[in-house]
């Protein structure tokens, strides 16, 4: 019967970071930075037309994936959507295998069969993604069910966008998860748009958590540009789920900087303003955490630059790997299905 509550960020920077280890905070930063740079690399490469699949970038939204996944163990599971790069990477998916997949190569994480919208890395609990809005949400219930039936304390996460709240299966899933007290996190990345449709032409209220969570489970609204806030909310929800307390819905308010699909900016389409984009870019989750960690003395500039250099090398290596990998053999078309 608990009502949704705002997990409001408090006071100054130190307060916010309190109790979190430097290693954890650094992880959060590196995770976001890896996502950012990998996707910026896609932006750079896409015009070459060697990445031949629709790519939905998470630039601007990295804090959600990074924050939630840092609260998980590798044995915990996650499913995602068309916009799945960030979740795959934050969950620990291999960067080489991701780029190879985008390039349609045999060495891709799906052997070239899934492409950008179905990134999968079961070895780290990333179980894949559906490109049908809300389509993967109930799968998280099944993972949780398997965990609880086999007596494991694994938790599973469904990542989805704001439009998923409009899909019936989402509400069915919330109901079933609450009824069976399944260890699930419903993580809604509310980036205010579905393709070019603003939330207000699709939903009657601006917040998703109160409606979706309703009387079923805690519904938490969190600043989705603040990886630490997201992490804290996820940690609470994960602990609750692990202890048999059932599911939580986390709504992270966030923003996609670039067009719905593809590498470009899209202010010219007219569905949103440059001013709105600027406001959100000013809250850049990556640089913001970097500044905060610098100020708090957790991540000095030199160390940060070293880590960033490592990310650069990693991304460059992944691209080289992808480029030099072979395409799948024609016969593989017929494999992986009976």
């Amino acid at each position, binding site marked *: 019967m608990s009502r949704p509550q705002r997990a409001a960020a408090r006071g100054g920077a130190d307060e916010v970071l309190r109790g979190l280890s430097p290693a954890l905070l650094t992880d959060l930063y590196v995770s976001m930075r890896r996502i950012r740079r990998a996707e910026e690399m896609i932006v750079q490469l896409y015009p070459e037309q060697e990445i031949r699949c629709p790519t939905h970038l998470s630039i601007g939204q990295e804090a959600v994936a990074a924050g939630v996944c840092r609260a998980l163990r590798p044995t915990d*599971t996650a*499913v995602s959507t068309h916009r799945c790069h960030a979740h795959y990477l934050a969950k620990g998916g291999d960067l080489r295998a991701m780029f190879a997949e985008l390039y349609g190569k045999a060495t*891709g*994480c*799906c*052997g*070239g*069969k*899934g492409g950008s919208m*179905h990134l*999968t890395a*079961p070895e780290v609990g990333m*179980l*894949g993604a*559906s490109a*049908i809005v809300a*389509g*993967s*949400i*109930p*799968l*998280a*219930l*099944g*993972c*949780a*069910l*398997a*965990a609880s*039936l*086999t007596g494991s304390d694994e938790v*599973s996460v469904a990542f989805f966008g704001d439009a998923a709240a409009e899909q*019936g*299966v989402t509400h*069915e*899933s919330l*109901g*079933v998860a609450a*009824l069976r007290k399944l260890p699930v996190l419903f993580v809604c990345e509310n980036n205010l748009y579905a393709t070019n449709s603003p939330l207000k032409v699709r939903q009657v209220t601006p917040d998703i958590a109160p409606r979706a969570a309703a009387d079923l489970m805690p519904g938490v609204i969190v600043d989705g540009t603040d990886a630490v806030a997201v992490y804290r909310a996820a940690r609470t929800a994960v602990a609750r789920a692990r202890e048999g307390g059932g599911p939580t819905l986390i709504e992270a308010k966030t923003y996609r900087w670039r067009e719905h699909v593809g590498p470009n900016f899209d202010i010219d389409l007219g569905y949103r303003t440059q001013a709105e984009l600027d406001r959100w870019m000013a809250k850049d989750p990556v640089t913001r955490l970097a500044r905060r960690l610098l100020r708090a003395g957790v991540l000095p500039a030199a160390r940060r630059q070293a880590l960033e250099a490592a990310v650069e090398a990693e991304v460059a290596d992944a691209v080289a790997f992808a480029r030099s990998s072979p395409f799948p053999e024609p016969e593989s078309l017929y*494999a*992986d*299905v*009976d």
Partner: protein
Amino acid sequence: MRQIKYREAIDEATRQAMAKDERIIVLGVGVDDAKGIFGTTRGAFEQFGSARVFDTPLSEAALTGMCVGAGLRGLHPLLVHARNDFLLLTMDQIVNNAAKWRYMCGGKLRVPLTIRAIVGRGWGQAAQHSQSLQALFAHVPGLAVIMPATPADAKGLLMTALSMDSPVICLEHRWLYEKSGPVPEDPYYIPLGQAGVVREGSDVTIVAVSHMVLEAVQAAEALAADGIQAEILDVRSLRPLDSDSIARSVAKTGRLVIADTGWKSFGVSAEIAARIGEALFGRLKAPIRRVALPDVPTPASSALEQVYYPGPREIAAAARRCLEVALPEESAERPAPARPRDFHGPF
């Protein structure tokens, strides 16, 4: 051999499979009910308890997706629906997820999942509770579709489905539930994709689906009385489809009648006809005839139900056409709607 009913065979298969493999769970609307999906799931509930056999909300789409997820994580869910009409609510989860997840992830994961659903017929259940939707599923790569017609096949095919690690849709005609037949007590497995020979004959092959197998047997008896020997094949599994066995039989008889429980146009009978027409080009003695539901929704009135469903008469007539034998004088009038004998409401 011991004779048991079709529904008992399903119950037995479920329990034997569950006893062997603890990954199997059973769920669906009403599975733990006293009636337990017409007696097919209650036994498992009593034997294995509510952790492994449980009732669900009427959230068929989410439950299907939940089963896909559970399958990805090592369970083998058996999801049961009292009517296959309800599967329409779950098409996205079945077609976009269950059937494709393994392929989309390049084979890294598999979806062990068995979905049972019942084909209704009669007693005025009308348009939304009497469909026979196998064609919709048989078209989808990544799914297997079985339609056992006998108690023995129900057990053997269901046990196979429950031992597989990919999605299988098992469609069971409600009118088969009370039929008895010999069923071995021990567990056994009938491979998918093998048609069964129900009756041997040399003049015409009747390939039948599900309850039409029983109607074909009656048709064959009527034909035999006229000296026509029909061979009956029970397709049993639509996907994979055993076109080889069908082709072998038709190569022998030269004539083919296909009898399906679904609609005719764009139905499973079309695929069988297309394959055999191609495989046996020039070797057929007569056009392939299809006996299936007329292309209209199911009417409620018993008077119309009686016109709607083809049966032994239509199958025999189709066979006779293949043999270019004049049809026996047919009374212009249909008999008045009779009360169904072994199946009526309430249910």
